[in-house]
């Protein structure tokens, strides 16, 4: 297009990376190097095995110093990967880092192209584009914005708890937001944890109460995040604290009110969430004894006063601390923070979706989570494994991969089922002496002490049947089967179909993203995998980062994982957040937009387009002005400006036009 060099005559250096064989095997790097050498403005072009290595970077630094290179193009991997690396190399040699341009010839060429000639041609086109573009580059400075010291952790399961404590211990103030009336998450419902079989409650509840007591942690249970605005280092989070009709500051969880609640008859009570419906609770309740905060909550969908407006209100009389308050309303609070950690967890697969297994149809078909409660001393049966008729099972079948590794439902492996099934097999056997069958597809026990645990169970005499279960039925073919549930499966090891009568069936349900994961992801402006798990920035190198700076993920919201992994991730996320906060500032890519007042006619086209209200009209001069601090650099105003008065740093029209022409200047 236009023919003015913004920052003087370019002396361009082009560096083509082999990335070992990753690029070199598909791209003829030598001819690419020679091609680049012939492009106008290019004073030298080199190719090298690993540009990101020290010698590679040193090559660039030296050429800048020795050969007066003032523009740098590196053709290698994606800028999302190493742009920063090479920019730093420029800085080290005293060159403004924005005189650097990257050509993505790995992710977008060598890794996706079959034919070597095609790949080489495409690589050259991208190099030509980068060369033309970099000639238009301008020197820029990164903006520094101070970082807010607080952190918001969303989700009070073991991941959220661990992250919150780690940060709090480091002296950061944490807002821990949990949707349920108590923190603890799924782990609180478990009895033992594999493979060590130590008691879940024993290791979790101390951490819970630590959270409740920690001076650096503001704990908001029964609360949800309504909205998030701002960017890394300076977020604004709006939290809705649902009315629990109990004053948290005065309630001590004595449960006198629960005693007093008029809902005495079983049929008027409601299923107890904590015991997955295996027991009932009243309208006012404490989820479980160690609930944190130790504060009751009144269920508006069960409480007569709240539903019908008339009740004896015995609870009010029972509470000496006058904590009960039917007038309470939802409270919306807004907090500022520098970083956000998402630890929203998972939900278990709904066993009704596999009708062939009879869940809901046969009393004695249970989900694994229900059994977790049954074997739990604090559970509805006080830890006794009893069937609904009160009898103890003599034969139990545990069906693996329910809802997992199944194209009809979830193709992925839920990773923890094999291990927890073995754990439950052990516990059931231990409590009842029953014969336990495990029906599995593959027994997946990778992890410290996991395989050993498997061996141990085999030694304990647990039965294993390799094969996907076809169905669970009460249709007896023999007397032996009468009154029992028959599990039909093909035993692929001995190659015959088998019918195994049992008293109790346990469905090892898989893990799934929360139903509202999509909304949550939108709210926090991050991405989801196709399954609905929150998407990490890089599967290997940035497993707890997201594509939104300042937002990290930990635990099962990112994908199925067991407790140790979850805790490790939580620690990692906390560490990343700490790194951000302790740096004290964020450097903002200077890709902000600005208005050339000489060209602006004041037509107001741009003003309504800015989602951040960064643009206003200077009525005196009759031109638009952009508040750089508010501009996030999307460039919408630039594309819209009919006068070409709006321009975006790093993405000027000229740079893009040059890139277009460059990309097309070679067939």
């Amino acid at each position: 297009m236009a023919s003015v060099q913004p920052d003087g005559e370019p002396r361009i250096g082009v560096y083509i990376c082999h990335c070992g064989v990753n690029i070199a095997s598909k791209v003829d790097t030598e001819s690419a190097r020679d091609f680049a050498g012939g492009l106008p403005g290019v004073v030298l072009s080199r190719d090298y095995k690993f540009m990101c290595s020290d010698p590679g970077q040193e090559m660039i630094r030296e050429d800048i110093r020795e050969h007066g290179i003032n523009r740098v193009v590196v053709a290698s991997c994606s800028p999302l990967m190493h742009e920063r690396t090479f920019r730093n190399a420029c800085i080290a040699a005293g060159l403004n880092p924005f005189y650097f341009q990257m050509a993505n010839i790995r992710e977008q060429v060598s890794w996706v192209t079959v034919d070597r000639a095609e790949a080489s041609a495409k690589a050259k086109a991208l190099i030509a584009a980068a060369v033309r573009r970099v000639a238009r580059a301008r020197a820029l400075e990164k903006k520094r914005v101070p970082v807010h010291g607080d952190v918001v952790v969303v989700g009070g399961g073991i991941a959220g708890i661990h992250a919150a404590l780690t940060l709090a211990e480091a002296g950061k103030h944490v807002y821990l937001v949990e949707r349920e009336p108590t923190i603890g998450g799924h782990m609180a419902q478990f009895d033992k944890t594999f493979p060590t079989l130590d008691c879940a409650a024993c290791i979790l509840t101390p951490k819970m109460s630590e959270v409740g007591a920690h001076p650096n942690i503001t704990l908001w249970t029964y609360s949800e995040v309504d909205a998030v605005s701002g960017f890394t280092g300076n977020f604004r989070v709006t939290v809705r604290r649902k009315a629990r009709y109990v004053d948290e500051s005065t309630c001590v969880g004595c449960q006198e009110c629960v005693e007093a609640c008029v809902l005495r008859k079983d049929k008027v009570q409601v299923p107890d969430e904590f015991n997955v419906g295996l027991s009932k609770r009243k309208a006012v309740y404490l989820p479980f004894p160690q609930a944190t905060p130790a504060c009751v909550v009144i269920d508006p969908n069960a409480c007569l006063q709240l539903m019908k407006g008339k009740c004896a209100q015995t609870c009010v009389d029972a509470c000496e601390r006058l904590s009960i308050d039917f007038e309470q309303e939802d409270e919306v609070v807004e907090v500022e923070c520098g970083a956000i950690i998402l630890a929203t967890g998972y939900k278990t697969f709904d066993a009704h979706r596999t009708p062939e297994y009879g869940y809901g149809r046969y009393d004695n078909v249970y989900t694994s989570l229900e059994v977790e409660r049954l074997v739990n001393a604090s559970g509805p049966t006080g830890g006794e494994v009893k069937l609904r008729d009160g009898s103890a099972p003599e034969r139990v079948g545990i069906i693996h991969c329910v809802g997992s590794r199944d194209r009809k439902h979830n193709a992925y492996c839920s990773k923890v089922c094999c291990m927890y099934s073995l754990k439950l097999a052990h516990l059931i056997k231990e409590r009842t002496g029953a014969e336990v069958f495990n029906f599995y597809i593959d027994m997946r026990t990778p992890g410290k002490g996991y395989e050993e645990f498997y061996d141990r169970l085999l030694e304990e005499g647990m039965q294993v049947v390799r094969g996907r279960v076809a169905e669970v039925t009460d249709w007896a073919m023999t007397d032996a089967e009468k009154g029992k549930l028959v599990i039909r499966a093909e035993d692929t090891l001995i190659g015959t179909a088998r019918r195994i009568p049992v008293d109790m069936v346990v469905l090892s349900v898989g893990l799934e993203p929360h139903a509202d994961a999509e909304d949550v992801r939108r709210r926090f402006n991050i991405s989801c995998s196709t399954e609905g798990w929150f998407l990490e920035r890089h599967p290997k190198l940035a497993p707890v980062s997201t594509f939104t700076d300042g937002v990290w993920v930990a635990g099962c919201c990112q994908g199925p994982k067991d407790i140790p992994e979850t805790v490790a991730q939580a620690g990692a996320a906390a560490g990343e957040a700490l790194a951000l906060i302790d740096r004290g500032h964020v450097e903002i890519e200077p890709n902000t937009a600005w208005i050339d007042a000489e060209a602006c006619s004041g037509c107001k086209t741009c003003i309504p387009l800015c989602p951040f209200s960064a643009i206003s009209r200077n009525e005196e001069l009759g031109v638009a002005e952009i508040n750089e601090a508010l501009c996030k650099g999307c460039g919408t105003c630039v594309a819209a400006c009919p006068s070409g008065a709006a321009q975006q740093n790093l993405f000027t029209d000229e740079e893009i036009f040059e890139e277009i022409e460059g990309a097309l200047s070679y067939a």
Partner: protein
Amino acid sequence: MPDVSLPIAEERKPRIIAFFCNWCTYTASDLAGTSRMSYAPNTRVIRVMCSGRIDPEFVLTALRKGADGVLIGGCHPGDCHYQEGNYKCLRRFRLLKRYLAQMGVEDERVRLEWIAASEADRVRRVTDEMSEAIARLGPCRLEAAPSPPDRGVESEQRLAGVAS
């Protein structure tokens, strides 16, 4: 700036200029790479921070400078990293398409796709589809037309001053 245009090969393959949003489609096409999905080699990806940055003139210029197709990749409705840039893109795109139709540019040559960061496979599919469609249509051949002039010289010089 001297013209670096290299001679265009006689029998050149169809070429597609792709404008990809940094936050979704560009990431998805990186993911396609890390997942080693192979697809048609015709696209030349140009990264922008948001599909809202895409000026209709980018599309026209690409076609004019020898592209046989243009693909725009942005975030799904509601997912824009900048809240609503993709809607601005949609509005401009729908109008541009009407103009292109009047100018006799076939519908398949210019496409807008919403592709999330995780949808690497969609990048592959769309690219392959488009390459086939354009191979069928043949080259766009707008290079022959007399050139429009450069942008105004006077303000270019002024701009250089303003910018540095």
